[in-house]
Each structure stands twice: as structure tokens, then as C-alpha cells.
């Protein structure tokens, strides 16, 4: 069982605001989902290597040269709030 405190902790890690109703509902749903997922723990996979990418890629590199990218104006044009050439945010707490 996931406690309400754990749900609040994870929501905080994810920077996700949740109402008290949502906390309760999501807690119950996470319990049910995790119950159904438990079965993967019955497999003994101690010696099995993990797969992070199905094509088994590693260290894909490109030439590190300058190239045209977004202009500052383009990058900023959808900013919810800007101050001159910067993204503006509320007080950092």
C-alpha cells in the first residue's frame, strides 16, 4: 500500500500540484497498477543485462561544428513572460 505521504512526496518530486481528492484517487489507482505490475518481480533476472534501447546504440556522435539554429527572437517568441532578451520567472525559492 502506498501511503498518502508517499503520494505527496512523489508529487513533489514531479513538481505536480494535486488536490486532496486527486491524491486519494491516484493513490488507490497506483496501488492497483503496481499490484498488476508486481508479477515482473517473480522472474529471476539477476544475470540478465538490461535493455535501454532496442537498437543497442551507443555513443552516437556528430561533427562538433557551428551551424544555424533558432535566433534569440524565435526562441523567445512564445515565452509566457520575458524581460528584454531573457525568460522571466517568479522569485526562485
Amino acid at each position, binding site marked *: 500500500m*502506498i501511503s498518502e505521504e*508517499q*503520494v505527496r*512526496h*512523489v*508529487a513533489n*518530486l*514531479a*513538481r*505536480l*500540484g*494535486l*488536490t486532496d481528492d*486527486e491524491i486519494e484517487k*491516484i493513490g488507490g*489507482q*497506483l496501488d*492497483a*497498477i*503496481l499490484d*498488476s*505490475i*508486481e*508479477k*515482473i*518481480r517473480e*522472474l529471476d*533476472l539477476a544475470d*540478465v*543485462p*538490461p*535493455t*535501454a*534501447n*532496442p*537498437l543497442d*546504440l551507443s555513443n*552516437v556522435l*556528430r561533427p562538433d561544428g557551428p551551424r544555424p539554429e*533558432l535566433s534569440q527572437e*524565435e*526562441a523567445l517568441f*512564445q*515565452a*509566457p*513572460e520575458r524581460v528584454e532578451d531573457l*525568460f522571466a*520567472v*517568479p*522569485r*526562485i*525559492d
Partner: protein
Amino acid sequence: MAGSHSLLDLTAHALAEEIEAGEVSAREAAEVANTRIGEVEDEINAFVTTTPGLALERAEAVDARNGGRNLWEGVPLVVKDVLSTRGVRTTCGSRILENFEPLYDASALRNFGDDLIVVGKANCDEFAMGSSTENSAYGPTRNPWDLGRVPGGSSGGSAAAVAAGEGWWALGTDTGGSVRQPAALCGIVGLKPTYGRVSRHGLIAFASSLDVVGPMTRDVRDGALLLQAIAGHDPRDSTSANVEVPDYLTNLEDGVEGLRIGVVPELMGEGIEPGVREVAERVASGLEGAGAEVGEASLPHSGYGLPAYYIIAPAEVSSNLARFDGVRYGLRVSADGVHEMYRKTREEGFGAEAKRRIMLGAYALSSGYYDAYYAQAQKVRTRIIEDFQAAFARYDVLLSPTAPTVAFEIGEKVDDPLAMYANDICAVPANLAGIPAISVPGGLSEGLPVGVQLMSDHFTEPTLLRAARATEQVADFRYQMKP
């Protein structure tokens, strides 16, 4: 309704050929699509945004550029609203991106050139998370076969648009069945290419190790042509495959004589509706009659696919959706401090399923649970890949149903995540292994379409498409525009 020789009766490749031959203009095609959308969209809600004016303008530009055009360029395209389109808002079915306007087209669209004829952005589950298109901030899409039922998801808008003739073909994305399952439920063809075959650059990420862009079409030949248009290496996506793109149309009609096809018993049993299983069995018999060697191909770990998927995908989501923080674009809800701004923005911007997946993923990755869940799921993924390797040593193509049921009713599963997730049981193994898979309509059950899924090894789309074309020929189903 259009006349007897309606452009809406044509497949995309037939329309492309008429445009190429100068029999029809791209502008006429765009007009026909716009008109059809105007007629049925109130009932279907396949689109978040329609772009009739832009479609006409771009179609005229394509017409003016005759000579040196790719065959596919004149046929208007429906684009799922998770693929970035320059100058056309791209919402991902989410409130948090309600007014987001990308600065460039997704790389998958680049072979359509600057004049991509987009008729609209198709509705989908929020950030492509769902199996019914009910998790959209822009209302559910209805299944053109039965307006009380879901079209599947997450690419439900794309599937419904093609089924309703609101365009000839569409792009969807498939992370755990999101192209194939809605294609199955709407009676069209849905192709998930090999992971990395199509660039993800400009596709707003859901689960980066699983996501792939795929064609949703009226028939298999249309799917092959659209794959031709979108496949290829892209330096802007480091996971895109630097593998030559073959001609997907050349061997399409070669048939299944001598092809080894393995029916997957684990995906034919428990949880699969009898009517769905019967269609899959009938198609397998039909392929045998057409000359294929049909046997049984076990995937012993496929029962662990769904739980592994529902750890890996949410874990990647919790990371990928961290970028929606109200700072650089999208919704911002004001607050005194920056942390409260993040929390409020995400609380108001995300819907219930997105929140659920973020929470599940953040939990599975959090300290103390990482090894038990995420690391274990990655190892299950290795086992599933090994299962496929063993199966492909004996068979060229594997066969199963695409989805366990026909289209279900709107509202039936939306508050029951486990019932909803069970829709993906046949689809997720191919995503975990990164192999290509396709859903082809196999027939009807209860008067609704049933999809048959074919899977093959990495980068063997030509074989997969050939088998899919033969499946289409033995199936008791022809595309019909609904409603």
C-alpha cells in the same frame, strides 16, 4: 455527397497517380478533403485543429511545382497533433500546449517539402497516453463505424479521419500500440516501423526508447508509400537508424508462397474476445491457403510485456514531461515563487491520465524502488527481445490479433486504468523489442472491424508489407468510408 467518380473513393496511391498524371490537381483534392471534413467533423471530432485555408494555399504551391515532385506530395495529409508542424498549433491533446506553435516541421515530414498539404491536426490522447482518445483536452473522437464507441488510441483522431474519409491517409505515432490499435478498431491499416526507421525529431516525446511515427492508411500499398515518404536517417535524432531505405513498393505483390508465418499462442488465448480470435485464425488459414507455411511461434515472456511497458513508458514520461514547466512556452499559471508556479502550471495543464503516468513513473524511478521496478523492467525487455530472436530463427513473420476486443463504448473504461491498459497486451511486445509490426483489417466481429497484427524482425518492412498485402487479399474486408 460527392458524385459517382468521387476522389474520396480513391486510395491515396491512386489519387497520387492521378495528380502525377495531371488528371486531378492537388488543390482539387484539398478542396474535397475540406468539404468532407466540413460535413462529418461535428459528429467525429477527429481534429483538434483544421487548416482548410493553409491546405489550399500549400496545394496550389505543389501544383505550381510540377516536375521533380515526389509521388506522395500532392495527397493531403492528416497529421497527429504530437508531430510539430511549422505555423500550425500543436497541442498534443493537452491544455498545457493549447497555444503552442512550432517553429519547424517534424523531420518525418521533410520529404513533403515546405509545402506539406496538411488538412488538420488529428486529435489524440494527451501526449499520446491512452487507448481510446478520451484523454484529450479537446473532447473524445468518435468511431466512424459506431459513434457511441471509441476509435481506439492514442492516434484515434488519425484513424477516425481515414475511416471517415476526412483525408486519404494519416500519420500517427506508436509507443505501445497507438498506431495499430486504433487502426484495428477503425477498419484501416496501421504500420509501426522499426524503432529508429523514422526520425523522432519534432515528435513531442512520450517514451523516447519506444516512440515511432507510422502510417495509417486505407490499404497496405498506401502504407508502403507513406513509409517511403517518412523513412530515413536524420542527424538531428541520434537514435535514428543509419540504414539504407529500401523501395517498399517493389516486392509488395510477391505473395506469401514459402513464407514462414508463426501464430503466437500466448496472444491468442486469455483476454482475447472469441470473435477477435476467430478472425485471426481465419486469416492464418487463408494465408496457409495462399502458400505460406503456418506454424506456432511461442513468445514465452509476452505476459510480462504489459507490466514491463507500464513501468518503462511512465518512467520515460515522468522525465520527458518535466520540460512543461511554464518557463519557455506553453501554459503558465502565475504564483509567487517558481516552485509553486511549476506545480500550479502542471496541475492545471495536465489531464488525469498524464498525471497518473507522471506519478507512476516518478515513483518507479524514485530512490528505493528503482531496482525493483525500472531496472527489472529493462531486464524483462531483454528477455522479450530474446523471445523474438528465437521466433525469427524459425519464422519470417509472426501473427496475432492487434487488440483483444473490438471498439468499446465511450466512457466504458475511462475510469479503470487497468482495463484500459489491457488493450495494449498484443501490441507492446513489438515496441519493447523495437521490431516493425502492422495491423491489417481481417474481418468483422459484432459488425465492427477486427485487426490482425503481423510482426517481423528489425528493418524487414519489405517482408512485413508483402505479408500484409497478402493478408489484405485473403481477409474478408474491404475499406469502406464511414459513416
